[in-house]
């Protein structure tokens, strides 16, 4: 029962008691008044009866005298006047008797009085007085005595009645007093009990609540106030408990976030320390050998070039290792900062897999391993980022080859459908050295090859798996590993893939930027031209190094695609000239070559390097990656109507941005996943709920690096104009 109800109930009880008491008092008063009234009348009747009795007696005496006088013969003993007085007295008595009889009947109960019945005697008296007729003497005496005894009886009855009424009165008074006292006591006790109970209960409840709050105050959020029923205190306690539980959850989230931040921080420091270590190791060889060579050259006159060669090769080897390391680290940082764009495209997966198979063949041979491939593909083309997929598969396979000697490496690729989504499942299994539980737990961490000795023994940057996993996550997929020490390891890649139709339309004609392709092979030139135009780039071509350099200086393209092997001015020379040019110096250059001199290319200043023959999709993907964001800035403008769109159009620098404008949030969601974005502008939109969700989504880790500008009101749109101006201008 609730507290208020108990209180109300108790008050009602006291009220009812008091009401009862009042009623009893009223009844008592009434009864008393009635009894007193009755008593008064009974007493009056008594006195009247007394009076009547007196008068009767005196009349009787007079009649007796008259009778005695008549007996004695004195004829005129009674005068007419005296007779008249006597007769008048008898009439009065008759009236009195009538009145008395009425009173007796009214004030005494039936059977407890006797009617006076004086009428007969009075009539006889009249007869006697008027005519000296009727009974005389003795008869009248008898009649009078009978009447007298009736009067006495009635006197007694009246007396008894008055006693009874008196007793009744006392009884009523005593009863009403008792009832009043009882009600008073009962009310007192009820009030006391109620007060005591309420105080005790309230104190206990408050103490319980206080204990809870003080426990929480001390940080013990696991404390929960015991169940206190369903009354107000119980509800308060429940609210407190709910609050504590919310607090507990909030604290948990905060702690978890801070723990994660700490862990991330620690991981970052660890990564830095490791990177420093990994970079210093080859650096030590490079500096050490070069210093030693310089000393040898200075000190030994007879030194032949042949003597220097082995050490130079070591320097080169260490340098190359360093470069791989730096590239891997750059890849990781690019992914982590969100600058690694995903390029979704339709690819013939079978060709990609065959290519991967051929690429890893030499690695397999090196350790005497056999590669077994099992491809189970339904769709001819799937939609994925083929460059990343290739890189992941190559990483996993080269790892398998590296840690397996004279064993087997299995690559199985299949398509799977789960919950309405198509997945590409690739499993790389080897029969190599395997990993322990502990090693397995850290295998995807940066710089943690199973242990340091394996790094030394097996080489590699120790970043391959880290990068692979990050790529897989970038594509919305996962890589998992399982292993048994000495038996081999299995890596499973699961990537969501599209059907490879329709979706690509969105990408076509979307890209923008000026590209200069320099190649002496006209067929290749045409191929590149077509591949890039199809993406929406403005493509210029040059068929020789000299011509290309000339065009580059004239048009200042956003990117140069450069063939290495050309007659006359070859690719390297063109690259050298571009890098040395004050204006063109920073233009990204993508080198195409028959030879795999990827590292050398990058060393000489190329921004990217592809080995011919180059697939259109691959070329487009790499170009998209290399183009500076300024030239192909993708701006997503979300607004209903076109107010902002018109404003943005007129801002200087806007022409360098590819602006996607939509008010349809479903379309926006699609666009977000389809393209890399450099700027998101959020204009007025009526569906605020959806917009809030979208904004929350855009504030998540993945989107954090993409700047987002918001303008919902007129004023905000005005200030946005300034901000946007700064953005676009900066890119200019």
């Amino acid at each position, binding site marked *: 029962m609730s507290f208020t109800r108990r209180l109300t109930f108790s008050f009602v009880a006291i009220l009812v008691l008091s009401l009862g008491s009042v009623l009893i008092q009223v009844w008592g008063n009434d009864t008393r008044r009635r009894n007193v009234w009755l008593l008064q009348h009974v007493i009056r009747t008594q006195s009247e009866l007394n009076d009547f009795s007196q008068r009767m007696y005196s009349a009787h005496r007079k009649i007796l005298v008259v009778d005695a006088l008549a007996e004695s013969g004195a004829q005129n003993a009674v005068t007419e006047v005296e007779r008249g007085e006597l007769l008048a007295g008898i009439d009065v008595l008759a009236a009195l008797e009538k009145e008395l009889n009425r009173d007796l009947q009214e004030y005494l109960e039936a059977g407890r009085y006797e009617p006076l019945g004086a009428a007969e005697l009075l009539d006889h008296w009249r007869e006697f007085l008027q005519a000296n007729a009727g009974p005389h003497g003795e008869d009248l005496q008898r009649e009078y005595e009978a009447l007298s005894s009736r009067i006495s009886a009635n006197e007694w009855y009246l007396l008894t009645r008055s006693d009874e009424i008196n007793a009744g009165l006392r009884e009523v008074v005593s009863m009403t007093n008792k009832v009043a006292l009882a009600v008073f006591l009962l009310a007192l006790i009820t009030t006391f009990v109620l007060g005591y109970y309420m105080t005790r209960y309230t104190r206990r409840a408050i103490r319980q609540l206080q204990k809870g709050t003080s426990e929480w105050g001390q940080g013990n959020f696991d404390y929960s106030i015991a169940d206190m029923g369903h009354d107000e205190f119980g509800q308060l306690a429940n609210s407190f408990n709910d609050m504590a539980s919310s607090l507990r959850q909030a604290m948990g989230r905060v702690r978890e976030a801070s723990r994660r931040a700490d862990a991330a921080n620690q991981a970052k420091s660890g990564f*830095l320390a490791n990177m*420093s*270590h990994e970079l*210093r*190791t080859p650096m030590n*060889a*490079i*500096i050490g050998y070069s210093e*030693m060579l310089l000393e040898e050259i200075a000190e030994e006159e007879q030194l032949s070039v042949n003597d220097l060669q082995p050490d130079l090769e070591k320097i080169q080897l260490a340098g190359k290792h360093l470069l791989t390391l730096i590239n891997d680290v750059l890849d990781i940082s690019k992914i982590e900062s969100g600058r690694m764009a995903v390029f979704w495209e339709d690819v013939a997966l079978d060709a990609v897999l065959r290519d991967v198979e051929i690429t890893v063949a030499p690695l397999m041979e090196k350790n005497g391993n056999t590669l077994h491939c099992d491809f189970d593909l339904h769709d001819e083309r799937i939609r994925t980022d083929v460059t990343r997929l290739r890189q992941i598969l190559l990483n996993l396979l080269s790892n398998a080859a590296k840690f397996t000697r004279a064993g087997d490496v299995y690559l199985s690729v299949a398509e799977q459908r789960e919950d309405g989504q198509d997945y590409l499942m690739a499993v790389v299994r080897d029969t190599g050295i395997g990993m322990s539980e502990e090693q397995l737990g850290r295998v995807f961490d940066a710089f943690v090859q199973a242990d340091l000795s394996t790094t030394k023994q097996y080489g590699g940057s120790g970043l391959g798996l880290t990068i692979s996993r990050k790529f897989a996550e970038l594509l919305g997929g996962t890589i998992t590993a399982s292993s048994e020490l000495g038996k081999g390891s299995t890596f499973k890649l699961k990537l969501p893939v599209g059907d490879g139709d329709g979706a690509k339309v969105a990408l076509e004609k979307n890209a923008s930027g000026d590209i200069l392709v320099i190649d002496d092979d006209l067929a290749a030139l045409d191929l590149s031209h077509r591949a890039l135009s199809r993406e929406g780039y403005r493509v210029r071509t040059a068929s020789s190094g000299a011509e290309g350099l000339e065009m580059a200086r004239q048009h200042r393209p956003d990117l140069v695609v450069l063939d290495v092997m050309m007659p006359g001015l070859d690719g390297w020379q063109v690259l050298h000239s571009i890098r040395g040019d004050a204006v063109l110096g920073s233009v990204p250059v993508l080198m195409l070559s028959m030879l795999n001199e990827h590292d050398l290319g990058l060393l000489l200043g190329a921004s990217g390097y592809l080995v011919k023959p180059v697939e259109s999709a691959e070329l487009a993907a790499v170009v998209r990656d290399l183009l500076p964001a300024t030239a192909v800035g993708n701006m997503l403008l979300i607004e209903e109507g076109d107010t902002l769109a018109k404003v943005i159009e007129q801002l200087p620098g806007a022409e360098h941005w590819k602006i996607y404008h939509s008010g349809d949030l479903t379309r926006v969601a699609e666009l977000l996943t389809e393209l890399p974005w450099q700027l998101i502008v959020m204009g007025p939109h009526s569906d605020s709920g959806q917009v809030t969700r979208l904004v929350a989504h855009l504030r998540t880790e993945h989107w954090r690096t993409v700047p987002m500008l918001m303008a919902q009101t007129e004023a905000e749109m005005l200030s946005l104009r300034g901000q946007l101006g700064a953005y676009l201008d900066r890119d200019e």
Partner: protein
Amino acid sequence: MPTILLVEDNEMNRDMLSRRLKRKGYEVLLAIDGQQGIDMCLSVRPDLMLLDMSLPVKDGWQVAREMKASESLQTIPIIALTAHAMADDRQRALLAGCDDYDTKPVDLPRLLGKIEHLLGVTE
């Protein structure tokens, strides 16, 4: 000339540093892991030990601790030579018992200075 034991698992670095030290006139002995380093100290008693920290079998910190705990080996000075060059790595190496610490890439004149200093102290 004094004998220096170089404990280093990276082949290139081992080759490079040993040759440079030899050119400076030191006799150089090589070990490629921690355990081998300790074993060679016991058998050859070099005048000084150059100790890489990230070693297979038994790492450099472990080697330094064992050397300094052993009565017969604790007099051999140890220079930690490592690519672990973060702020607290020096402290870690010294705490493990190394007498001095130097980072890779090696600055040879500085390293030679430290070697000569330690050899001078012990002689």
